[in-house]
């Protein structure tokens, strides 16, 4: 399985939300729905506070429970990669995958009713491009690439920087990394 990862530097992210706008524009996500979002996490007690911005989305988990629990095979790993896609023609809208996702990263597409989510812009990845959110980031805090290539930018960042993933204890093996 080719393993694509997104590496996001929380030290340089300013929470501007450009990634969210880029996604909506690129993927024509309807009003009121979002495939990605920005979280501002504040820790500590005033005046000793630290703030972390995180651009979040589907973690394209290697062991994705949304894929294993889908009753029709609509949720699947794309072309033997970790990129999780939904085949709208196979989706009944039963919403099992929404319940299965610990990151609440899925949504019901309106008005059609099939389940939708971040695709890591696989249509761009196919052409060797970065996902829209990564390309549009004004602080260049987002990085995308293959973890199978030890010389890729994402591999090098994960070798040299401290990082975390979100709730790894769910066992889903997520592939969006946050540099801390």
């Amino acid at each position, binding site marked *: 399985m080719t393993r694509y990862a997104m590496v996001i530097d929380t030290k340089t992210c300013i929470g501007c939300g450009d990634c969210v706008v880029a996604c909506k524009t690129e993927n024509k996500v309807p*009003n009121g729905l979002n495939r990605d979002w920005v979280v501002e996490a*504040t820790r500590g*007690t005033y005046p000793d506070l630290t703030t972390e911005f995180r651009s979040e989305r589907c973690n394209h988990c290697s062991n994705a429970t949304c894929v294993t629990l889908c*009753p*029709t095979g609509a949720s699947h790993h794309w072309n033997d990669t970790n990129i999780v896609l939904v085949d709208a023609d196979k989706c009944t809208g039963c919403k099992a995958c929404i*319940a299965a996702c610990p990151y609440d990263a899925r949504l019901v597409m309106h008005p059609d009713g*099939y389940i939708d989510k971040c695709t890591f812009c696989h249509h761009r990845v196919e052409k060797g491009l970065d996902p829209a959110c990564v390309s549009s980031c004004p602080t260049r805090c987002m990085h995308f690439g293959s973890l199978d290539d030890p010389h890729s930018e994402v591999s090098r960042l994960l070798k040299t920087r401290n990082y975390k993933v979100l709730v790894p204890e*769910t066992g889903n093996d997520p592939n969006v990394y946050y540099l801390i």
Partner: protein
Amino acid sequence: MTEELLVTARSNALIDPSLHIWTWEVAMYLFMGGLTAGIMIFAALAIVRNKEQVAPYAATRLALLAPVVLSLGMTTLFLDLEHKLYVYRFYTSFQITSPMSWGAWILVVVYPFSVLQILSTIRIGYPSFASYIDRLMVGRQIVDWCEQHRTKIALAVIPFAVALGIYTGILLSAFGARPFWNSGVLGLLFLVSGMSTAAALVVLLAKQKGEKVLFTQIDLTLIFAEIALVALSLISLASGSGQHIDALQSVMGGSYTLAFWVLFVGIGLLIPMLLEILELSGINKSLAMLAPVLVLVGGYALRHVVMEAGQESTWTSYETQYNAELLQRLPDSD
């Protein structure tokens, strides 16, 4: 202190501000699926254990209710689907890791077995209805065959009915992302609850006093088992990880505390248990018909509370700044 705010509005319908993808339609299916399983199990057991004399309703008439109740449940389940025209997709693949896929196929197998079960006793249970079938030679031959193999059919029905009763609980417990459901006891709890509601239904519908008493005894035993399984579920959550302990709070002071303890445990388990004990010991029989009604109410309440509390339990939670009214100000997009 940790405060996690959504900076950009993530306003995904049914997910924000908290997950609420499944409502009464799914709870009703879970209830009716369990009830169907119980109906088929008791109708089969009455035949296998030669209880036609003691339990004539269960042995000869009860089975007819199974496809009716199951179809009603499947109708509400269909209402819940968001992409309804693609419902046939459940039957274009089998996903071995998905309990929902197992369930879809179990339903397909259950229907023909249910029909065979009904036909095997239809001449005794519903003679006027049977006379219509007997007018056709094929119908007569099929009913003859079913009657000859009555016990074998009953034996074959049991594993599929058990599968139907247990899979709904396994389905919910497989969602590791929802800690409240993530207990191995849930499948068994749903099966026992489904059998209890079916026993209650027999008490309501059977005419013979002896049969009512027999199924009151059966129901009381099942209520004891159900209380034990509920206790085990709570213990399993209370001794789990932080997420499980947090999830337990929804019935221990949180939003579903009243519904769980009053509607399910109180009205659905303890009061019918007391009424059935009073009735069986001959102390008070005036409320005899109330107990089975409460058991049925409790059976639905269990599914509803478990379904809602499970959706509330999560690994991630943000303070959302989303305000739904702002959406009204957006121009229509196309």
